[in-house]
């Protein structure tokens, strides 16, 4: 479908810039227009890039959770300490899996992202509670590092929706 979302948003920003901003007299309104233009670029990126990013991030996080679970379950002491937490994590990961017959809309992808992140957050909190007992254990350290590596990748992905959009003054 032409024009695509990016071109439509570009045309809105250009028109605001050329026809509305010069007519804006109040300093507060002018400042709001600056914020609006930044947000329009952000919305444009979300429309075009966000579904794929969410899909990729969900797959990444699911596999991270699987690997961490595997490591923990293979460590009898840790598995025993975290038993309830591990079972809950595994169930949450399974429950979040989408029905392949249903179209993965952005709302569904976002709902899954929130569910998986909540699961990761709970698991992380459980790991932190046993830190003092296991801080020198290789398995424990690997799990924590695996999670940190994922968090770094997540940040890089999210940045694709932010850095190109928010430029110049914000307000």
């Amino acid at each position, binding site marked *: 479908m032409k024009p695509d979302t990016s071109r439509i948003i570009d045309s809105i920003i250009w028109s605001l810039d050329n026809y509305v901003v010069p007519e804006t007299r*109040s300093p507060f309104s002018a400042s709001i227009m600056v*914020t609006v233009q930044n947000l329009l670029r952000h919305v444009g990126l979300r429309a075009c890039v966000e579904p794929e990013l969410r899909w990729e991030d969900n797959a990444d996080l699911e596999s991270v959770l699987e690997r961490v679970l595997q490591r923990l379950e293979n460590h009898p002491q840790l598995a025993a300490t975290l038993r309830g937490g591990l079972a809950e994590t595994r169930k949450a990961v399974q429950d979040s899996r989408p029905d392949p017959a249903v179209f993965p809309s952005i709302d569904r992808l976002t709902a899954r992202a929130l569910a998986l992140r909540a699961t*990761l*957050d709970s698991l992380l909190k459980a790991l932190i509670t046993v830190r003092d007992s296991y801080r020198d254990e290789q398995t424990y350290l690997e799990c924590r590092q695996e*999670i940190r590596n994922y968090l*770094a990748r997540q940040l890089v992905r*999210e940045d694709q*929706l932010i850095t190109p959009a928010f430029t110049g003054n*914000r307000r």
Partner: protein
Amino acid sequence: MTSVAAAIVTAKAPGDDLDAGFVAGWLGKRLACDTVRVTELVKFPRGVSRETWFLSCEWTRGKYTGTDRFILRRDLPGGSICLGELRAEYEIYRRLGQSHVPVAETLWYEDDPRELGDHREFFVRRHVEGDWNIPNLFDPDPRYNPLRIDIGREHVRKLALVHGCDWRALRFDEILEVPPSPADSARCRIEAVTREIDRLAVEPLPLVTEAVEWFLAHQPSGGERICLIKGTNGFGEEVFRNGEIVALSDWELCCLGDPAMDFALVQSFLDDVIEDGKQLWGLQPALDYYQTLTGQVIAPQAVDYYRHLYGLYRVQYSQTAAHQLENGDKLCRLAWLSAEVLQLGQRALASAIGCTNTEIPRMGQR
């Protein structure tokens, strides 16, 4: 009988903006005047955490006439973005008015529903003549280096004044959390901010969970004593006249704690000034100068710690903004806070725990 009039005012925005008629009527009662004419009522464009309005008026009382200029502060329709309440901000100004710290005089706090009508509560302080802007400060020409150094030193002198306040005598312990010891300063801040993020429960943030563990494990010593801390400070926050700070403004992050925190939150006044390879100004020269004024040694590592910790504050602003949008507020500033400011905050947290090696966002005008 008080009569009111209004001029030079911006159009009333739908729903929530102040109007000159209301302000003139309210001021007429407070100033006990026969007539009040509002000649200026302008919302400060850059404010994010709260609204700031500049208002000027002409008044008559019997045979006397006069003019006055005030600043009005109130929350956004959905509340403030910051942790402290509006009333606490007013109380901070009021208490500082009894100290040597230069602040605007606070006059009135209005929360009486009969006076407010359908307006939100607010407080009013006297306008201080001066300017937050400093011409040529950012001009890279080396001939402005002395200006940058003078401004920086003046700012450090005023921070020393704030940190030297007898906060117990000024009864700050009645309105701010007192850390049990200097070593608990960072922990108190971490707990206050994370408590608010948890209360809002906007979205799961495992990076926050990870970073909070790191911050708690790496707390700085907290200095020799608990000090009054200004919070965000530096360029854009203070009022200058003839090179001197005549009013320290923006106290919404004010707390009791470690003076290193204030050095972490300085905007632009600690930027490096280097000539012929020699550092004339910057963080370390500022800390050295501070030591000559106060005798207190602040480690640059502690400042760096609080620079990273400010990421947690940014996350809190973003979550509060997102919460307000979820509750039906519409101001687009909130959407910006929930999107970009969350990312900036998380970047600082990731840097703290060693997830990324990118530079942490600078303090300042975002």
